[in-house]
């Protein structure tokens, strides 16, 4: 697809949005195939954007805020939980080693 550009595109869009059309711009928009295309696509997309059937009730901002705090809290606690698990494993290993050593000592005597 060949690349078609027009230097008036931005001005045409601005005029379409604000309604401030000058005579020369209107004349240009009628003649220029690129600007005609810009206006067609812009109008169709704006119509689609105004389609009420596709609107949703979005969650409350505060709900997301507290969800984010809860996530941050969980993430902050993660290193502590990892350290706790490591400490438990170490304690169990040391405890097992001590018990085995005591049994051996008892068996020798």
């Amino acid at each position, binding site marked *: 697809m060949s690349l078609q550009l027009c230097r008036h595109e931005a001005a045409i869009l601005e005029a379409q949005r604000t309604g401030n059309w000058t005579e020369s711009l209107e004349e240009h928009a009628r003649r220029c195939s690129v600007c005609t295309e810009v206006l*067609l*696509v812009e109008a169709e997309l704006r*119509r689609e*954007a105004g389609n009420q*059937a*596709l609107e949703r009730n979005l969650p409350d901002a505060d709900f*997301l*805020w507290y969800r984010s705090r809860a996530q941050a809290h969980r993430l902050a606690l993660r290193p502590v939980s990892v350290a706790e698990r490591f400490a438990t494993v170490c304690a169990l290993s040391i405890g097992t080693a001590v018990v085995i050593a005591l049994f051996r000592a008892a068996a020798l005597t």
Partner: protein
Amino acid sequence: MTQEEFRSFYESTAKQLWAYLARVSGDPTWADDLSQEAYLRLLRSSLPADADIAHRRNYLYRIATNLLRDRQRLFRKEQNTVITSPVTTPRSEALHDVHSALRQLRPADRELLWLAYVEGASHQEIAAMTGYTRLSIRPLLSRARARMAAILKGERK
């Protein structure tokens, strides 16, 4: 960002972000999930607390666009097909052809067209929101627009 600042930012951007995600993905349920995730990531991000609203908005759209691309990639991998997720909401006849035109475009084209013509974003803003370079926006947008116009004209013949 304080809770009050977030509330005000959310209220000024949430509907537009949802509409962008719904139209680019073609699936409102994706838009529900991804818009929430985008705000959560924004809140967790290291964006300076004093970042202005425009910067924050661009950053939010960038997060949302990346999330959407990841989801589309995953979906394509799973389905091994082009994304044509149907929107099940009842639609009027007048809106049918633009919706169907959007569905025939590539997601990247939908992103550009929606941001430029509905959001009214400048090329610089679109670059910040999508990750493309600023200079590439004009030709990419022009091609996307030409494709959409061709589809619309074809449908109306």
